[in-house]
């Protein structure tokens, strides 16, 4: 006996709810991660807009103001009149006083140094014009320092944006990687879903469909692989039960057919069934131009046997006679209990002579056969057989002829075989 290991089964709805929930959770996590990245990008862009860009603008203004101090300082040295020099100095003092410079210590110091040096130069130049050229070399150093500071501030301002933009790019690249991961996850999940659907629903349903399409009592009971889905398993079980039910119905039908076509005492086919199948067989044989013989047999003195030994003894004789019949004739020959102690025969593919020999051998065998009655007494019976050629006649006509020959056999003294043609 094959034992199948018990496997846990899942209800389809539960399985799909679990799958859908898992998918929703995974997708939710990915969406949350992407939302976090989006939030970071938004934060970075807001920071860029609200803090960094104003800061860049401040750096630009600071650089512009320092550059203006430097340019006005150059004018102090290039001015041809004291008024022009004073005008530039005055502007330098104004720019050096701007809060954008004051709040940046390095710039404030550079501007203060430049302002102090240039005012000093202006004061000295008002008394001695040659001071301008003498102090120019030192001014070149201060001017260079201012230029470097302007460059530094410009680069510093640009770097602020670069940092923010780099962070945004990094976040966006991370988000893109997550998005690709999410797509792979969704694709993988869908693939898994399709595989699971195919394995646990579609293929089992196809198997059930094929099984139901060809479900027949002639086929063995359907076999299914162990299904993991409870609903599929239930349908498969129902299919098996359906096959069992069909087989049981077929067995019952055959039993009923047997009861309807057989004689209850002898087990031979009854007259009604004989007439149906003998007629069909006869037509088939005649259709192929082959010979056939119909015979009627009747036990001799059977009424006297019943009267002498009782009906039980008569039944025993009939049963024993039936056994002899089944043992003596060919598989293709058809025999039935025609009624009472009378029996009908169809010998297909047999000529009258062949049938006569067969019938005569049987008659002799019956005559030589001891039958033990219920009380232990051994008796012997004889029979008469009337044969009729059925190669070209209907079954009714052939039976009629055989009956006539049987009557003739009785009349001539019993325990003999008579062919209808012989009496015609």
């Amino acid at each position, binding site marked *: 006996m094959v034992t199948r290991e018990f496997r846990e089964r899942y209800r389809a709805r539960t399985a799909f709810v679990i799958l859908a929930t898992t998918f929703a959770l995974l997708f939710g996590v990915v969406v949350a991660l992407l939302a976090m990245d989006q939030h970071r990008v938004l934060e970075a862009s807001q920071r860029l807009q609200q803090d960094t860009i104003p800061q860049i603008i401040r750096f630009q203004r600071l650089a512009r103001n320092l550059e203006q101090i430097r340019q006005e300082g150059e004018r102090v040295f290039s001015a041809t009149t004291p008024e022009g020099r004073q005008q530039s100095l005055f502007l330098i003092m104004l720019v050096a*006083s701007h809060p954008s410079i*004051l709040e940046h210590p390095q710039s*404030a110091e550079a501007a*203060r140094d430049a302002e102090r040096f240039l005012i000093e130069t202006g004061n000295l130049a008002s008394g001695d014009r040659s001071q301008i050229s003498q102090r120019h070399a030192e001014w070149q150093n201060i001017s260079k320092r201012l230029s470097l500071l302007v460059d530094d501030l410009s680069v510093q301002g640009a770097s602020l944006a670069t940092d923010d933009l780099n962070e945004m790019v990094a976040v966006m690249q991370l988000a893109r990687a997550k998005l690709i991961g999410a797509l792979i996850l969704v694709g993988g999940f869908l693939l898994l879903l399709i595989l699971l659907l195919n394995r646990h629903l579609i293929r089992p349903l196809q198997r059930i469909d094929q099984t139901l399409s060809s479900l027949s009592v002639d086929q063995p009971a359907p076999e299914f692989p162990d299904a993991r889905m409870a609903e599929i398993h239930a349908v498969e079980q129902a299919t098996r039960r359906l096959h069992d039910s069909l087989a049981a119905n077929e067995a019952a039908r055959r039993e009923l057919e047997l009861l309807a076509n057989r004689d209850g005492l002898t087990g031979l086919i009854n007259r009604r069934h004989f007439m149906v199948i003998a007629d069909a067989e006869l037509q088939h044989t005649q259709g192929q131009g082959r010979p056939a013989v119909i015979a009627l047999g009747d036990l001799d003195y059977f009424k006297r046997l019943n009267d002498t030994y009782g009906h039980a003894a008569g039944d025993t004789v009939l049963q024993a006679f039936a056994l002899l019949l089944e043992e003596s004739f060919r598989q293709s020959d058809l025999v039935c209990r025609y009624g009472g102690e009378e029996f009908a025969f169809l010998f297909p593919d047999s000529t009258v002579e062949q049938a006569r020999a067969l019938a005569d051998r049987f008659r002799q065998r019956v005559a030589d056969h001891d039958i033990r009655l219920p009380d232990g007494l051994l008796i012997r019976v004889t029979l008469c057989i009337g044969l009729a050629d059925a190669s070209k006649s209907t079954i009714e006509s052939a039976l009629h002829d055989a009956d006539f020959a049987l009557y003739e056999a009785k009349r001539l003294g019993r325990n003999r075989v008579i062919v209808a043609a012989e009496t015609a």
Partner: protein
Amino acid sequence: MGILRALFLGIYLIAGIVQASELSVAIGVQDPSQLAMSGNVIPPNMPGSELIAFNDDLAREICRRINARCTVSFVPFSAVLPGVEDRRFDLGFGNLLRTPEREKRVAFSAPIWRSSSRLLGTPAAAEAFATKLGHPVSVDTLRDARVAALEGSQQLAFLNAIASQRGLAVSSRTTAQEVIEALRNNSVDFGLLSVQSAYALLNRDTTRQIEFIGSAVADRGLGGTVHIALPLQNDTLRRSVDQAIAAIRGDGSFQRIARRHFPLGLD
């Protein structure tokens, strides 16, 4: 179609009339002689005219942006805040720094530029005090001197706060030009003014008797962002003015106005 067109035109005109409000604008002057003038007639070569003209141009541009008809009045600096506080003026211009005390009295717009303060004086006074003190004069080292500032200004408040500690004799003047005059006639040793106001006055002074002394200062309430003063509890007007300032900055109008009157960026 004609009726609909007329209807829309009527609605548009009514909306324009309703929207076009009347605003009164106060601009602090630099010189007492400017009090009786209007913006169009202030001679451009007058002391301090650049700052007044700049404020005047800015005020008119803002009024145009908020679709308001503005009437400009020139008042002493010290009258700007009380006028706005009393709702006699809707907008007050005058190099006004934003301080917590002032915020209790008036509302402030978004910043329009940045300002700092600096001592003014004659070179002789600077040298004399440097000798007396043993180091150059600046806001941080100033002591035992007569100092003047604009009435109602942050500079005056600062000087008053340190006066006893530093031994300062603090006095106030109605206009910046009066502070300059006080320096010229030796009524005071030093003046403490906003750099823009001082620049506007000294720019055209060919005598060069007065000059900046020491470094500029932007902390301790003496510098920072400059705003337009507005009446409290008029958020609608304040929002409109802020939007106008942002628009003026955004399209470069502010920079053009500033460059028209000053040789450098104010912000």
